[in-house]
């Protein structure tokens, strides 16, 4: 998963949802941030940078040639 969310830390302020340029995140039924469109993520890191609760970690995918 590109965007990891620590649900224990998330307070559901919605900053990540509003600032995501690709609408990857939404607030779920209990108001916490959750990944809806993982494939749309461009790993810009806007959500992690401005999450006031340190709930988000953006994990950039490792390229195949680097793995080898």
């Amino acid at each position, binding site marked *: 998963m590109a965007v990891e969310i620590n649900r224990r*830390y998330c307070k559901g*302020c*919605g900053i990540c949802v*509003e600032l995501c340029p690709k609408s990857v995140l939404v607030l779920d039924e209990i108001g916490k941030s959750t990944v809806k469109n993982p494939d749309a993520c461009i790993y810009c890191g806007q959500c*992690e*940078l401005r999450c*006031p*609760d*340190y709930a988000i*970690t953006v994990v950039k995918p490792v390229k195949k040639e680097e793995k080898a």
Partner: protein
Amino acid sequence: MSESVGKFLRQSALPHIWCPGCGNGIIMRSVVRAIEKIGLDQRKTVIVSGIGCSSRSSGYMNFNTVHTAHGRALTFATGIKLARPELNVIVMTGDGDCTAIGGNHFIHSARRNIDLTTVIFNNGIYGMTGGQYSPLTPFSAKATTAPYGNLERNFDIAQLAIAAGATYVARGTAYHAQMLVDLVVKAIENKGFSVVDVISQCPVYYGRKNKMGSAGKMLLWQRDHALPVQAADKLEPEKRQGKFLIGELHKSEAPEYTAEYEKLIEAAKGKGDGQ
């Protein structure tokens, strides 16, 4: 949370108690990243805070920390720096704490040019006590104690710091979190009194009272109203209306207080030779 940020925060104290959408968490991360970037020794770094929402940050940061009396963060920090000049002392304070009850300490710390770094979490309101207006609440903005709008003009804290003698003055915002890291780095590196005024959002009191919308919208307001100093010079005055400057606003050289004090001690020791 990235590993680097995790290392400098006390995991047992998290999640923090700040309200959903509060900018304090963003600012605290930028300060921690700045400390990491310079590579300060955790054991030789002291975080001092006063009272207020922002001042809770000292409890979350994994350094030598002191949570002091209201408005007196700079006073305690001055004592620490004078006793142990080799320590890096960073003061975390809010707009009310620093400019109302601590206003006198603020101008005199600037006047002495003592080597402290002061980060002001400027959300323009007293959040912890229920949304009263502070000396940095803009004119005509609403607060619980100013339901018809604030009649008092606000300080321009950066101009106040420059006039009082601070040798490094910058302004950032919670939105420009990446830029804030660099400003705090320069503030820490400056040997003298450094001030970083950080415009932040209080969605619960300031935002609600002034109908600014969600925390995300308040961050976008900061983006739209901040004017980098480099760009401001090229703009006509009418285009600068209603905007505030961000970036490095002032840098100068002046004798630093603890260095001068050290010289005095050496001079006094010299006089006593041979007796």
